[in-house]
């Protein structure tokens, strides 16, 4: 894994972000706090995975980090500075330093542009990175770096497979030499044999270039093999975070325990019936989150305290904070949640 320093490149401090949502054609518009107070740090050259189920607010965090969404409260800090307080030059520099790679390599690449145009586009916007005369050579070098044929620079996105298109998206993010790449489900649309290719590529690029990743995924298998640290998100808040192995070996939040036990894995062919924790009911809506602990409607440990009071994210042992009134270690948890 990559060398790490202690200066966070990215820091989220009590971040609240969301949307206005209208209920029906005549309904009043209401605020959805899709991210309801998130603290998170990504240090130079490290990989932090944000993992959670659909709708929990992962992409909303990503949008706030790349300034596509203005925080309702709290701060997004880049190199220690609040990004909403930056001047024009600072904002421009930020747009270069932080890049975004999406899940869908089909939708995120303009079909009318050649690979050469896609990769050099940012050099037009941010002059001074690569001198005009070097564009061809630099495009070729980038393609080579991400494992594509440098001779294919004149092709269009539709002439590539899904995995190859994701390589193009990564090359495009790298073109401006960013310090942080926010990857939002970058391998979820790819076949499993191709996923590993892309993950290996990202890991190699980190070793070579020292770029940091905020890596968003719902796939717990991917997280285990890719993340230095992991933050587990549930309905707008982080319920547990820590070094990846620490969290996987000793999950302390009931939600993390349920997620890890329910994630199907190739090793499960000998699993016994009833071994996994099966939560009851449905995921609550962020429009109307439960009182107290937002997990209490599905939690088998919930008591009155949980319905009344929201648990704070507290450090247990070193750097492994958990937001649960009754956090325990995995090995004392009953096999079945009911």
């Amino acid at each position, binding site marked *: 894994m990559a060398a790490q320093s202690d200066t966070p490149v990215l820091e989220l401090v009590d971040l609240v972000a969301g949307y206005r949502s209208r209920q029906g054609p005549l309904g009043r518009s209401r605020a959805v706090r899709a991210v309801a107070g998130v603290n998170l740090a990504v240090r130079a050259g490290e990989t932090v995975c944000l993992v959670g189920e659909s709708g929990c607010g992962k992409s909303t965090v990503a949008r706030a980090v790349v300034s596509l969404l203005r925080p309702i409260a709290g701060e997004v800090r880049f190199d220690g500075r609040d990004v909403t307080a930056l001047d024009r030059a600072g904002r421009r520099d930020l747009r270069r330093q932080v890049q975004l790679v999406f899940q869908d390599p089909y939708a995120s690449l303009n079909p009318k542009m050649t690979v050469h145009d896609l990769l050099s586009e940012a050099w037009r916007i941010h002059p001074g990175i690569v001198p005009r005369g070097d564009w061809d050579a630099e495009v070729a070098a980038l393609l080579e770096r991400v494992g594509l044929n440098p001779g294919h620079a004149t092709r269009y996105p539709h002439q590539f497979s899904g995995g190859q298109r994701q390589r193009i998206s990564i090359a495009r993010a790298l073109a401006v030499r960013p310090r942080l790449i926010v990857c939002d489900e970058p391998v979820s649309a790819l076949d499993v044999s191709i*996923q590993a290719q892309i993950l290996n590529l990202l890991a190699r690029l980190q070793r070579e270039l020292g770029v940091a990743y905020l890596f968003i995924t719902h796939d*717990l298998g991917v997280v285990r093999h890719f993340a230095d640290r992991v933050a587990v998100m549930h309905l707008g808040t982080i319920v547990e975070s820590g070094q990846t192995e620490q969290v996987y070996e000793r999950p302390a939040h009931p939600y993390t325990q349920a997620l890890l036990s329910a994630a199907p894995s190739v090793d499960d062919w000998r699993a016994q019936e009833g071994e996994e924790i099966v939560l009851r009911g*449905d*995921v609550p809506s962020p429009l109307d989150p439960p009182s107290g602990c937002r997990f209490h409607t599905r939690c088998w440990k919930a008591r009155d305290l949980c319905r009344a009071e929201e648990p704070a994210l507290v450090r247990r042992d070193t750097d492994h904070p958990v937001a649960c009134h009754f956090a325990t270690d995995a090995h004392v948890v009953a096999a079945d949640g009911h």
Partner: protein
Amino acid sequence: MTELLTVSDLAVSFGEVRAVRGVSFGVAEATTLAIVGESGSGKSLSSLAVLGLLPAQAQVTAGSIHWDGRDLRACGADELRQLRGTDIAMIFQDPLSALNPSLTVGYQIGEMFRRRRGLGRDEARRRAIEAMTEVGIPDAARRAGSYPHEFSGGMRQRVMIAMALALDPRLLIADEPTTALDVTVQAQILRLLRKRQRDGLAMIIISHDLGVVARTAQSVVVMYAGRAVESGPVADLYTVPAHPYTLGLMAASPSARDAGRRPQPIDGYPPDGAALPTGCAFHPRCPFARQRCRTEDPELRTVAPGRTSACHFAEEVLSRGGAVGHPRA
């Protein structure tokens, strides 16, 4: 065990494109068969062919399909429709497309009891609520009056399963039944399906996820580029694959359980159905490939009791041993 459904050497073409090129599988009462493979490998087409639901441009060009002693390829459209409503049920990959947006969910489930069982309105409604409760929809009596768009993805998929299981079919074919769902919801659905299987239901689960297959099936067919490349019991195939593609797929799957096994990619990309490689379709990506593989397409043959492989060097692959041989303690 006698098989309820037996499919042999099935082939499906879109004009010149041979999308499915010889697939065989069978399933018996109270067992689950999984068809695994990457996208485009022909999983969905193979199962649609069984029920006579192929897209208009597609044609079954070879093979046989037998259900409970009946030759389904010789059946007319009406006979197949009758069978789909009673003995065989299917859950499609896209649940929203299979529900009518303008009718309540309770009405749509109830309609099956009215149409197929001739039940009256009240009785049909009661049975619909029962079916919804069984698949774990909370507050089913109230939710029966909701429209499909008012349900979350997970709840909609449960509605689809309730509809599929309502008339007590003998076989359920489920195409990626949990792919769009969160893991906690997936766990609920898989547990429900396993329970029905223990109660006697035969199932075919189509999936690209070896983890889901490990948790549901007893036997597996692995497809690559329109062909079955390996088949066998789950425990055997997961311990020691007999085909290089299965071996590669196992090694590529990221495990949430085992920190030591980093996912290893398979080099290259899956082929395009219109431009298949010569010889063995997997040879450009295969670490075992030799000259013979480039010219001669290997036949699917028995390589161990109950196991088949379509690789010239299956014995060599088998003798290399374990892919994921560490069961959970």
